[in-house]
C-alpha cells in the first residue's frame, strides 16, 4: 500500500518537474516582453478590436513565441551545454528528452497558427509564421556562421508590434512599419551589449558574435552607430503621424541619452561593466519610448 502511494507521489513529482521544464523551454520572460510589444502595436493601431479577438491574438502570439523559443533550445542543446549560463536549461541538464522538446515546439506552432489565422485574421498568421521560421531556421543556425545573424534575428524580434497592429486593422501601413523599424534597430545595440559582456561564454559555445569575431573595439563602434540609427528611426513614428509632439520630445531626449551612454563606451577603459550598463539602459529606453508612443496615440492632447 505504502509503495503504491510512493509510486504515485514519485509520478506526480515527475509530472510536475516535466511541466516546469516545458514551461522553462518557452522562456516565459521573453514571452512577456514580446506580448508587451504586441499590445503596444495593438494600442497604437487605429480602430477597435473586440476583447475576445484581442485575447485570442495575444494567446496565439504567446504560443508562437513559446514555439520559437522551444525549437531554438532544441537546436542549440549542444552549444547550451558549453555555456555556464545555459548549462542548467531543461535539455542540456537532461531534465527533458530532446524529442519531447521538438514535438512540444512543433505542437505549439501547429496550434497557434490556425488560432491566429482563423481566430484573428490571415495576416497575423502570416506574420507569426514569418517570425517563427526566420527565428528558428535562419537566425539560430546563422549564429554559428556570421555576426550578421544579429540583423537576421532582429527581424522576428521586431514583428510582435506588427502582429498587434494587424490584429486590430487587418492591414499594415507606414505607421506600423515605423514601429517595426524602431524595434528592429533597438535590438542591435541591445544584443551587441549582451554579446560584449558575455563574449567569453559565447566564444566557448562557438557563437560568432561581433565581439568574438572582430573584438570589443569594433563592437563598441557598431553600438554607437546603431544608437545614432536608433535616434533617427525614433523620429519615423512621428513623421508617419503617430504619437505627436509628446512622443517626439520623449524619443529625442531618451535617444540622445542612450547615444551619450554608448559613446562613453569608446573610452579604452570601458569594458564589461559599461557593456552591462548599456544593456540595462536599453530596457528603460524601450519601455519609456513605447509608453510615450502609446500615450501620444491614446491621450487626446498627445497628438498636439
Amino acid at each position, binding site marked *: 500500500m505504502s509503495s503504491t502511494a510512493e509510486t504515485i507521489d514519485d509520478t506526480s513529482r515527475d509530472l510536475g518537474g516535466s511541466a516546469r521544464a516545458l514551461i522553462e523551454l518557452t522562456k516565459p520572460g521573453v514571452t512577456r516582453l514580446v506580448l508587451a510589444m504586441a499590445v503596444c502595436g495593438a494600442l497604437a493601431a487605429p480602430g477597435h478590436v473586440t476583447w475576445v479577438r484581442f485575447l485570442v491574438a495575444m494567446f496565439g502570439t504567446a504560443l508562437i513565441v513559446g514555439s520559437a523559443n522551444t525549437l531554438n533550445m532544441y537546436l542549440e542543446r549542444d552549444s547550451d551545454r558549453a555555456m555556464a549560463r545555459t548549462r542548467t536549461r531543461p535539455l542540456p541538464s537532461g531534465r527533458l528528452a530532446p524529442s519531447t522538446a521538438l514535438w512540444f515546439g512543433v505542437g505549439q506552432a501547429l496550434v497557434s497558427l490556425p488560432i491566429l*489565422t482563423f481566430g484573428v485574421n490571415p495576416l497575423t498568421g502570416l506574420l507569426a509564421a514569418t517570425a517563427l521560421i526566420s527565428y528558428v531556421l535562419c537566425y539560430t543556425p546563422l549564429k554559428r556562421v556570421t555576426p550578421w545573424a544579429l540583423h537576421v534575428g532582429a527581424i522576428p524580434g521586431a514583428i510582435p508590434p506588427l502582429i498587434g497592429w494587424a490584429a486590430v486593422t487587418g492591414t499594415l501601413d507606414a505607421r506600423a512599419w515605423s514601429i517595426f523599424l524602431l524595434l528592429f534597430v533597438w535590438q542591435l545595440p541591445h544584443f551587441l551589449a549582451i554579446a560584449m559582456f558575455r563574449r567569453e561564454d559565447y566564444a566557448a559555445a562557438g557563437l560568432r558574435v561581433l565581439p568574438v569575431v572582430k573584438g570589443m573595439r569594433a563592437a563598441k563602434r557598431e553600438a554607437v552607430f546603431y544608437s545614432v540609427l536608433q535616434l533617427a528611426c525614433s523620429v519615423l513614428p512621428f513623421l508617419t503621424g503617430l504619437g505627436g509632439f509628446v512622443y517626439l520630445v520623449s524619443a529625442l531626449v531618451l535617444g540622445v541619452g542612450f547615444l551619450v551612454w554608448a559613446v562613453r563606451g569608446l573610452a579604452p577603459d570601458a569594458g564589461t561593466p559599461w557593456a552591462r550598463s548599456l544593456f540595462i539602459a536599453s530596457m528603460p529606453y524601450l519601455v519609456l519610448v513605447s509608453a510615450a508612443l502609446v500615450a501620444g496615440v491614446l491621450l487626446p492632447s498627445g497628438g498636439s
Partner: protein
Amino acid sequence: MTTQLIERWWPWVLFTAVCFAIPLAGFLCER
C-alpha cells in the same frame, strides 16, 4: 553532401511549408 543536407533538413522544410500553408489557406478562404 547534398544527400546529407536533404536528409537532415527535409523535416524542417516540411515544417516551414506547413507553417506558411496555414495563413495562405486563410487568405484563400477569405476570398
